[in-house]
């Protein structure tokens, strides 16, 4: 018994040594892949020339390193050691703040003004946005800029000490907001609003370990966005209703995305976050203006709760003004492949959404392209103008019909004028459009 144990121990070692190779060749254990932009080296093809030059060996070593069995576990172990023992966040661009608040570095840079593009460029952009806003307004369309909250502005108190800087006016966020006000560009400053309600909000608005607003914060923002459009266009739209409030420390959706990207071995502890059950109410009788959203990743969470379908009449989501969704889920479709003017003018509302960290490249050439296209396309606008007016008339008629009292009044007027009810509805709708203008 005593003599046999040493061989057993040696055999155990050999078996453990073989497991990664076996797993690589023939995966026996299901291992969750690593999160993030992981590009593993491919197996190189053998050529005598590349063998003698050493190129094959170098590539094969890289391939083995990236694809050895259980590699995700190894990487997570390394990341956990660096994080727990040495305070290092191994994911590129991730900063570990005080109390383990995690930031993506661009959000800290944005808050500090390290990415400031200059007042001249910002004013130029704002003027272009204003031009588009006015152009769309002529067609009874609404342009709205929504500045989503940034983690840097929301949690500056948790910055690492070596990244704290005095507050500055030379930040993209501040300059954009000031100029939006100055040039009367329609905008919602969610960044400021979130900071204002941060201490009074019942649930966490910005997650400790996430890049984006919390699920709950996003829902509040959605409600606010709908309200703004309603007031701006004087219409009644579907509303977001919380049917059940649920709190849990098991973070969902994007509330843990930075920590997830760090690929740690152990889940980081979190305060409970709120994940209400929701539904959109009034979807049958209210107006759902067709709305195009050109946005960074902050709109994804709104898109995923169905706002595009239930509120915005499938207006479309242009991610960073590049990929078009939902079409790109089935087959990639980019903005370059479509008729820009036609697609934009099909919508009644156009929303441009960005967080402060993405303001340096805002609006990802959307404004420049559409403005240029519109400038060359004035003739087409008259045709589109008529089409839009017809659409508006139909929507107003739908509103009248949904209001019993109002509809009865129209019926009375029709009887008095001896014309059909439908004709009276059209006349009333046209009158209302003129009143708005």
């Amino acid at each position, binding site marked *: 018994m*005593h003599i046999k*144990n*040493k*061989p057993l*121990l*040696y055999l*155990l*070692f*050999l078996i*453990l*040594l*073989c497991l*990664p*190779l076996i797993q690589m060749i023939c995966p026996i254990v299901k291992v969750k892949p690593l999160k993030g932009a992981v590009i593993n080296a491919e197996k190189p093809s053998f050529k005598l020339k590349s*063998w*003698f030059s*050493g190129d094959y*060996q170098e590539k*094969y*070593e890289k391939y*083995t*390193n*990236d694809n*050895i*069995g259980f*590699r995700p576990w*190894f*990487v997570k*172990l*390394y*990341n956990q*050691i*660096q994080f727990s*023992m*040495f*305070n*290092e966040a*191994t994911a590129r661009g991730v900063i570990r703040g005080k109390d383990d608040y995690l930031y993506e570095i661009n959000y800290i840079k944005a808050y500090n003004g390290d990415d400031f593009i200059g007042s001249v460029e910002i004013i130029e952009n704002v003027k272009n946005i204003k031009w588009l806003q006015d152009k769309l307004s002529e067609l009874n369309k609404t342009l709205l800029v929504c500045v989503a909250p940034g983690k840097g502005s929301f949690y500056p108190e948790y910055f690492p000490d070596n990244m704290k800087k005095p507050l500055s006016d030379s930040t993209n966020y501040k300059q954009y907001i000031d100029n939006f006000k100055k040039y009367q560009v329609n905008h919602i400053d969610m960044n400021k609003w979130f900071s204002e309600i941060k201490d009074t909000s019942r649930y966490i608005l910005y997650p400790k370990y996430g890049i984006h607003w919390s699920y709950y914060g996003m829902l509040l923002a959605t409600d606010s966005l709908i309200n703004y459009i309603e007031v701006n266009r004087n219409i009644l739209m579907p509303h977001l209703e919380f049917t059940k409030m649920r709190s849990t420390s098991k973070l969902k959706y994007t509330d843990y995305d930075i920590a997830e990207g760090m690929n740690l071995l152990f889940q980081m502890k979190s305060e409970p976050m709120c994940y209400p059950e929701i539904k959109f109410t009034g979807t049958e009788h209210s107006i759902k203006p067709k709305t195009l959203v050109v946005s960074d990743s902050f709109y994804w969470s709104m898109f995923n709760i169905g706002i595009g379908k239930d509120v915005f009449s499938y207006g479309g989501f242009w991610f960073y003004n590049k990929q078009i969704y939902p079409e790109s889920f089935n087959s990639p479709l980019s903005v370059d492949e479509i008729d820009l003017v036609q697609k934009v003018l099909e919508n009644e509302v156009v929303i441009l959404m960005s967080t402060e960290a993405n303001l340096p490249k805002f609006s990802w050439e959307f404004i420049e392209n559409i403005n240029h296209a519109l400038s060359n396309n004035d003739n087409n606008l008259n045709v589109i103008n008529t089409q839009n007016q017809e659409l508006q008339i139909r929507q107003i008629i739908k509103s009248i019909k949904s209001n019993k009292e109002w509809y009865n009044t129209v019926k009375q007027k029709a009887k008095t004028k001896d014309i059909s009810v439908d004709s009276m509805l059209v006349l009333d709708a046209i009158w209302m459009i003129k009143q708005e203008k």
Partner: protein
Amino acid sequence: MVFSSILFLFCFLPVFLISYHLVNKKHKNIVLLIFSIFFYSWGGANFIFLLLISLTTNFFIVREMDRNVEKRKILLIASLAINVGILGYFKYANFFIENFNLVLNYLNFTSLEWTKVALPIGISFFTFQSITYTIDVYRNIHKPLVKLSDYLLYILLFPQLIAGPIVRFNTVADDIVDREKNETFNNKLNGIYLFVIGLSKKVLIANVLGEYVDNTFLSPISEANSGVLWLTIIAYSFQIYFDFSGYSDMAIGLGRIIGFKFPENFNNPYISKNITEFWRRWHITLGDWMKDYLYIPLGGNRVKSSIRLYLNLIIVFLISGFWHGAEWTFIIWGAWHGIFLILDRLFLIKLLSGIGKLPRIAMNYLVVLVGWVFFRSESLSQSVIYLKGLFSFDAMNFSEILEPKFIFILIVAVIFSFSAAFSWGQKLQEIFYSEKRAVKAHAFYLVLAITFLFICSSYITASGFNPFIYFRF
């Protein structure tokens, strides 16, 4: 292929060990030779054929040397000429041509046209091993090997092929032919622990410190303040120690698993009280080789005049320095140590014998540190700038490199390097490097070894920074 790579740890090593254990005793050496040739070819595909041809030639020359008494000396010279010639050509030709051209340019002559020669990996190590084979046979210390395959195995044995230890022929001659008595499971398990200790030294300490050292040397040295320069060279002293001793431990551990008992190469060199002692603890196999195959043939301690003795020492250390690399910095490093060795003999040991052990260790460490400046610098001018900055004491501000990871690893390195100067440190070492263990102890150490193996593997696969210093040699 390096030991501290995923390819070696989880592909080459398990396949090799299984193949090795599955074949019968008669074929073990062939399996070992095949894997060793593949191991070398992986990193030096262009040189394997040259290596095999030169080794085969040397084998037959030495065999003939052993048989033919009349031509013994001529064949010895031929064998040495081949070995030194190959080393001289591949490793030093570029250096000599470059310096010759410098002289020509200085005298306004046209430079010689020369295409730089590539350096085969491990050439310094296997050449010296080959020389020990020739000389040990010549001196009748051991009979030559009967089979060519056994000779090739002795030189190409992958555990110690590319970075030592330099294994002298008579040390392993019998084991090459029959090592069954060494292939006990106790030895195999101890070999595993040693391998993992070496791997941990390399990956968890040397590589981590190396990142910080490289950052300093990649930036303009003249702009670094004195504090940073001191911290960097201290970090380098531990980087090179743990890197090289780590590799030696891995080589010795692997050898132990397959029945070879390679000699120790490092014995806590930084607790040395003088340079003489340092060279009995640092790269021991090189020191022994230089003593037996260069210093003693030059006359050793038995020369009549002191000047001749000191000259021999300087020659040995200049060659030691030059062996490390074909650069003036290595020659100066060797000379630096040679000078202090002479000073030790002249008066230094006697002078400092009165002061305590710890101050002498500190002073010797300082001497070694200065030497490392030459060793690490890319050029003489860089080493001069570094030393000027080091001793300027202009500002001792090293906050820019004082990160938690660096501080922690540096402290660990200091503890492991100097603990043997104290009785508690010696006791700890005895426990960890013990050869005899009960089964329960083996179970405990195996769990520890597997844990550290996986930690090291996680570092290797995740960090992507894994250079090895001694490959240049």
